């Protein structure tokens, strides 16, 4: 039941953002559309939606966005340096990163964050491990590169999604 309400609220916000008009008819149509969406797609939505209602998670989400942006910018410069350098100092390969996260949604978000950061692409998730294609494999130590790739996001994602 909770997930139906969650998808209803989510889709109504999405509707308002799409149309951005606040006339009565538009809002009525929007509520109807959101009802239809929650009715039809509610059962496919995420199973545990209680975390959606806990306010402190949104606080961490905002902080996470800043952290993520900062890491993104850093990685951008890093990749740009590697591409523009005459010697092209790249050493690509796929590494297996250990995760400390439990829930699937958190793993998904982490994998997507890794993909969004230039230089690393998450290839697959198997159990507690995530395979990452990395542009410059600087170390062979599992702990070290896990920290380097995933560690910077992991603690925030843990706070947001678990």
């Amino acid at each position, binding site marked *: 039941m909770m997930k139906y309400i969650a998808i209803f609220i989510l889709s109504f916000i999405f509707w308002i953002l799409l149309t951005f008009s606040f*006339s009565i008819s538009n809002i009525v149509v929007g509520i109807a559309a959101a009802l239809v969406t929650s009715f039809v797609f509610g059962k496919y939505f995420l199973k545990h939606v209680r975390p959606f209602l806990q306010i402190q998670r949104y606080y961490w989400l905002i902080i996470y966005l800043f952290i993520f942006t900062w890491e993104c910018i850093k990685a951008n410069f890093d990749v740009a340096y590697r591409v523009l350098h005459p010697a092209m100092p790249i050493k690509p390969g796929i590494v297996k990163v250990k995760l400390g996260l439990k829930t699937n949604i958190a793993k*998904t978000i982490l994998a*997507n964050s890794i993909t969004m950061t230039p230089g690393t692409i998450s290839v697959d998730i198997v159990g507690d491990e995530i395979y990452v294609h990395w542009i410059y494999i600087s170390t062979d130590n599992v702990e070290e590169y896990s920290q380097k790739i995933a560690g910077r996001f992991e603690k925030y994602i843990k706070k947001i999604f678990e």
Partner: protein
Amino acid sequence: MKGMSIIVKKVAQLISGLIFLYGIYIITHGHLTPGGGFAGGAIIAGAYILNILAFGSDAMNLKNKEQGSSLSESLAIFIVLMLAVFALFIGSKIFFANYLPKGQLGEIISAGAIPLYNIFIGIEVAAAIITIFLALVIFKEEVKK
């Protein structure tokens, strides 16, 4: 088909509802902005197909789904036809005449019967594309066995 990895599944769960809503948006604003029944219906079908691809054909009862979608396709297109035929009985008694009040330009509830046509054509197109997709998927499964 067994479905894809966790990443795809979770993302599909998260956004398929929103894709569906976007399809509804395209359909209901068909008389105001580019788009309409066909485009929106294709998007709605896309939301379903995303789910089926992500979770695999084993996870869902596709045979039942196909019957439902083919029935709703026939029903929707029949209602479109009946909307047009309804015009034969009232007002100017002309096939496909726009018999509802036109309303004000730019409002979401305006343009007479056109939004109704859009909605039902949207359902019809979505159901039709899903039916085609499911027919091909089921067929492939049968070939494998």
